[in-house]
């Protein structure tokens, strides 16, 4: 054989160690999987981390994929909790138990150097339908607009299109598959315009006023800002005790505080 005695012993020890680790994992830790909305994903991760310090016996995994994935995986059972941020839940999600855990504004974003600071809903409709194609129409530079949108299964996109109404996305619009990549794309393109969760704004992109109203926690709470949708957590009719407990934690004071601290709006 090509291994000497010491090599064999090392491999044997590694084998046993891995086996022990695996069996240990399976027995002592309950695991919960969340999947869906990429807008709520970072907050779910934060909440899961905090919850796991309180309940070290539970292991929570958070996956993205978009709201439609969240609904699909909650129905099929691949995830115990589906995350969806839609204005209205679709027909197939009616069989699930839905809990609103937060509200979230959709911010219109452009590159920080873009002089445009304000758009009306009608202008947004025209930009995302391809009728306005130049920034100079909107008081900006003499450059073409790069429209950045999401894939059709995105909750942010369907909420956005439902609120703004009558959007027919042009076929040359750039499609990104998460809130995070929208942010990267807009931050790296001075002609881009996109939309993403208010909680994911940072200094590398600029949020626009919509109909003259700035996208802030106050305006979303007060109902002046138009682009707002709820965040649903979807479970089967009777969730397991651990799953229900995690959702209760999110709705509790410390959970809601985490949500508010990171830019989302809690539920009263």
């Amino acid at each position, binding site marked *: 054989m090509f291994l000497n005695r010491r090599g064999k012993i090392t491999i044997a020890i590694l084998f046993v160690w891995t086996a022990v680790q695996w069996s240990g994992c399976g027995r002592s830790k309950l695991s919960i999987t969340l999947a869906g909305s990429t807008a709520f994903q970072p907050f779910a991760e934060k909440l899961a981390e905090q919850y796991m310090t309180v309940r070290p016996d539970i292991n929570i995994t958070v996956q993205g994929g978009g*709201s439609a*994935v969240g609904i*699909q995986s909650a129905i099929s059972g691949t995830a115990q909790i589906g995350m969806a941020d839609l204005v209205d839940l679709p027909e197939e999600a009616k069989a699930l138990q839905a809990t609103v855990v937060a509200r979230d504004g959709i911010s219109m974003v452009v590159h920080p150097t873009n002089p445009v600071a304000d758009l009306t809903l009608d202008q947004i409709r025209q930009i995302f339908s391809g009728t306005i194609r130049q920034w100079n129409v909107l008081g900006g530079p003499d450059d073409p607009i790069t429209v950045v949108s999401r894939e059709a*299964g995105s909750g942010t996109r369907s909420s956005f299109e439902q609120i703004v109404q009558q959007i027919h996305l042009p*076929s040359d619009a*750039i*499609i990104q598959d998460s809130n995070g990549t929208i942010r990267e*794309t807009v931050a790296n*393109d001075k*002609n881009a315009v996109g939309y993403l969760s208010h909680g994911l704004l940072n200094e590398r992109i600029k949020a626009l006023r919509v109909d003259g109203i700035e996208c802030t926690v106050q305006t979303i709470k007060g109902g002046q800002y138009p682009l707002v949708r709820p965040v649903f957590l979807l479970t089967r009719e009777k969730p397991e005790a651990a799953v229900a407990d995690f959702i209760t934690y999110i709705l509790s004071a410390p959970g809601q505080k985490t949500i508010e601290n990171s830019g989302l709006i809690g539920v009263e």
Partner: protein
Amino acid sequence: MQVFGENTVRRILMGIAFSALFGLLLIALFIVKEGFPFLVKVGLRDFLLSSTWDPQAGRYGIYPMVVASLWVTLGAMVVGAPLGIAGAIFLTEFMPKPVMRVVKPTIELLAGIPSVVYGFIGVMVVAPIIRGHWGGPGLSVLGGSVILGVMVLPTIMSISTDVIAAVPQSFREGSFALGATRWQTVRMVVLKAARSGIVASVILGMGRAVGETMAVIMVTGNAAKVPHSMLDSVRTLTANIALEMGYATGLHRQALFATGIVLFVFIMILNTIAGAAIKQKARRR
């Protein structure tokens, strides 16, 4: 110490080898089973040649994606093949052997970089450069080609290096003896002898480029329309599947599996050509 007999070991190895083949067969069957009903219903011509992809409206034409995949892949070859082959020639013919033993594994290390990283470099570095110099959205065929061209470098370079190094030393000595310079020897003797192997390396690199998904999703912008220039944003076959498979149901889901069949056939054709090229070389020896 004899734990296993000769025969037992042979059977175990055979079992493992066949399980890999069996897995591949299952994957192929699964894709065909899910996608074929769609092809029958919609028809191959409508599917491949109509240029509107709008699942919500029930329009399933993947012509833009087929064109996009071809453009991006060919672009990647234009970027990657000359670099890879030139690099391989330099490594084998002009670089001292000890240096080559260090440089070659370093290049092969490129293959180990996750494609997300290439994608990020594309979004943060390549796309802004393209936008700044030539306009357009930056996330484009050109951007995808450049990134994929670099990604296929290790494949093309390491196989080409092996093929060129395998050309018998006597060929070169013969050429030198006739008074040829080093470059003449490379061009007229070595490259001729290694030609089919180099072709095979390029085709294998092409297979890699067609199948790459993550980096392409990030760099090409994913607009589902037929490109008119290298600066247009496009969506490749792989990107189309990866973007929509998560939430697709019913006919839409079947359409994505049918896209998978097209991709499968695409790659099989490429691999068959590569296989033929390698066989041709073996016959000539």
